[in-house]
């Protein structure tokens, strides 16, 4: 604190800090910080609308193939590791909860709680990626990678599918790989953003009237969670499971 500031009353000091914040953070095209925050959130919502279209095409196509080639899709779905898929759903939901708390504490200007919540979110995100990597490994071991590790005869001998249905199994598995890989890419981008925002939060860059980056990151993270919520039933839960289908 400079000697001049020491003479100020607390109310004056708060006003001075706010003026400096506005000078540092407010872009010239906005009237005030609140309008700027609203614009930032609206921008993220528009981006998420385009993301809905991106994942929407994949979901609609998968739904149609599921309808046309039901038997093959169900057989392939039962081979996927639903236990890891389910646990990952829980992990991602908890990370969304901690992210919601991060935005909550940013709004209340509680810097330590904000940083902790962001770190927890990152930790759960990493946990998700770790489990996903392990799941991909089990898929590799169980020959579920069309074009690389895939034995057509296994599906005819063990699953009782006709040779004509094997291409449909491959199609479903391709959707599984493309959709989960794109989702994992989104989680990875989210993790990088969480790390950056956590560092900034620790430096005390966010205040009661300026926390739009945390808010916008929260929207993105929740959307990635939302996509996974739909991926779980569409990929893992198409067929009927039994307790012995647990293949960890």
């Amino acid at each position: 604190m400079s000697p001049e500031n020491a003479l100020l009353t607390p109310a004056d000091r708060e006003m001075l800090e706010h003026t400096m914040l506005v000078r540092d953070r407010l872009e010239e095209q906005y009237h005030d910080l609140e309008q700027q925050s609203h614009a930032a959130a609206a921008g993220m919502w528009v981006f998420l609308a385009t993301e809905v279209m991106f994942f929407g095409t994949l979901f609609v196509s998968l739904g149609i193939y599921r309808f046309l080639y039901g038997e093959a899709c169900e057989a392939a779905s039962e081979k996927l590791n639903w236990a890891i898929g389910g646990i990952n759903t829980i992990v991602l939901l908890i990370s969304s909860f901690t992210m919601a708390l991060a935005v909550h504490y940013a709004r209340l200007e509680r810097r330590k709680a904000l940083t902790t919540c962001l770190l927890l979110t990152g930790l759960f995100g990493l946990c998700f990626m770790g489990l996903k990597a392990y799941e991909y490994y089990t898929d590799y071991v169980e020959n579920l990678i069309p074009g690389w590790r895939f034995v057509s005869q296994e599906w005819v001998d063990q699953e009782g599918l006709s040779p004509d249905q094997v291409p449909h199994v491959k199609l479903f598995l391709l959707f599984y790989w493309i959709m989960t890989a794109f989702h994992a890419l989104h989680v990875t981008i989210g993790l990088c953003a969480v790390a950056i925002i956590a560092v900034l939060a620790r430096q005390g860059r966010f205040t009661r009237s300026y926390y739009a980056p945390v808010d916008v990151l929260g929207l993105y993270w929740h959307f990635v969670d939302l996509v996974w919520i739909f991926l779980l039933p569409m990929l893992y839960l198409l067929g009927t499971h039994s307790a012995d289908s647990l293949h960890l």
Partner: protein
Amino acid sequence: MSERILSVPTYASVLVALLILTVATVGVSFIPLAGHWHIAAGLGIAVVKGGLVVLFFMHALHSPKLTWAIIAVALFWLSILAALTLCDYFTRGMVPGMPGH
């Protein structure tokens, strides 16, 4: 970005509801259901879960009208995407002489 602040217990109860629904959705997959009922049940629960995430975690409930407009537009575009694609696939083979499934 909303003016109203939700409380931590509210977020916690939303999380508990989401976790219960996740267990339910996996649980349903153990019930031997015919044909498309698994996907119908799974997607039904997913829509409820998605609604909870959007309304509470993403604060749509207390967001400005602009946010609601963007959500509505996103769903509208998605419905065009789905409806026109389905129109194509489910009318294939109905026209004599046209290739289809």
